[in-house]
């Protein structure tokens, strides 16, 4: 699209011309780019940032769409942070104690990724491992009762939505834990982050805080 404005005339003339740069085979969904566009701060409803008919994209954002060259590091951090339910609250509390500047602005994504991994390792992956080992033992000792075993808070109110059953959880862990580790190794190699994003992203997001979708009333 080209925009030409002639201000010398008595009246203003604005002409816009379009040309097709590229035809896409697949649909381009805003969801895939929400962590690569500087203007987006509402990660729940990103379309709100596009309520004008015409608006400007930075070069690197334009390339994100055309070349699928997204801000990968920020996309990973944002995707994980906004998928971890109440652990987001745990992570924010944790990070506010050790690296509070990440929450205020100018988030160092390398540092954020490393801390996020540490958090997930100790808060989720190790407990998952403990549960799997516990389940192995239960299966050996009480094989017939294993599927009925779980955890509950109040003995008089043990409904499905407040009882934490072991067997389906172990199934989830078995189905997904290895996949998670695979992503980890893709992101890190021997503890070092291997993703090299377009340098223009760093400039564009230099004062931007972590992309967190705050859920104040999340009681999960």
């Amino acid at each position, binding site marked *: 699209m080209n925009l030409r404005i002639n201000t010398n005339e008595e009246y203003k003339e604005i002409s816009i011309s379009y040309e097709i740069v590229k035809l896409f085979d697949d649909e381009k969904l805003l969801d895939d780019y929400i962590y690569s566009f500087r203007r987006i701060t509402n990660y729940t409803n990103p379309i709100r940032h596009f309520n004008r008919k015409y608006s400007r994209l930075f070069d690197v954002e334009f390339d994100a769409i055309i070349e699928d060259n997204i801000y990968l590091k920020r996309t990973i951090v944002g995707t994980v942070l906004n998928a971890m*339910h109440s652990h987001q609250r745990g992570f924010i509390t944790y990070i506010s104690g050790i690296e509070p500047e990440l929450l205020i602005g100018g988030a160092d994504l390398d540092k954020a990724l490393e801390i996020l991994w540490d958090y997930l390792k100790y808060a*989720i992956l190790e407990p998952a491992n403990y549960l799997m*080992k516990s389940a192995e033992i239960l299966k050996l000792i009480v094989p017939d009762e294993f599927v009925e075993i779980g955890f509950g*808070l109040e003995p008089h109110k043990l409904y499905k*939505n407040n009882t934490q*059953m072991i067997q389906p*959880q172990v199934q989830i862990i078995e189905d997904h834990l290895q996949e998670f580790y695979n992503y980890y190794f893709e992101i890190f190699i021997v503890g070092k982050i291997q993703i090299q994003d377009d340098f223009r992203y760093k400039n564009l997001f230099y004062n931007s805080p972590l992309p967190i979708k705050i859920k104040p009333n999340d009681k999960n």
Partner: protein
Amino acid sequence: MTKTEIKKLKIVVEKLTKWESSGKAFGHFNVLVEHATHLKGADRLYEFFCFMKILENLSKNYKIILQPGTKSGKIFPVAPGNKKYWVYFKAEHNTDPTNKYQICYGTKIKLRKAPKTSFAPDISIQKYDSTEDPDETMVELIMDAKFKFKNTDTLPIIQLNDFIQRVTALETINADSISLQFSSLLGLKGNCLLTNGNALNGHETYCKIYKIKQVEKFDTESCYNVVG
């Protein structure tokens, strides 16, 4: 990583961070920052693992029988609970019919002289005929588990003091001389403070005098070590 992989990563994280059956957050919270969450008993997966390791070892010498709770069936409490409502185990020795115990998880044990005060050790070995509302006369040995965010972290002195107070109040100072027979975890016969982290150095004598043991590196992979 492709867009498809990012979507899968999102699903994997969503799945692993919550309980499938209840939708509530899965994992450990308070190990990071105390009171980081209002979730009761969110840090109990390590405690339950310790309980299972003890049970597994005893199962070599004992027949283990699951004893369902009156209200909950085969559900364990995520926070300290009244014994009669929750499941626990009975252990009957394979060859010695007089050697038998109850193995309980997170059940409250009241003090006879102060019945409104109770303690709920993570693991308690109780007499075989212990009642549904036990007091200190029915408990033989106790253990507590302390998960450390970093496995290089050390048990603080306050946790040793607190555990000693429990052992004193529940009168389990003779725990190391009961007839309970472990299979390979021989050093664990006693009041143990189990941790995936490190024991507090320099307090071995203190632990011996007050009849507790610190068990460090008690996890899924390491060789544990007993101090005290």
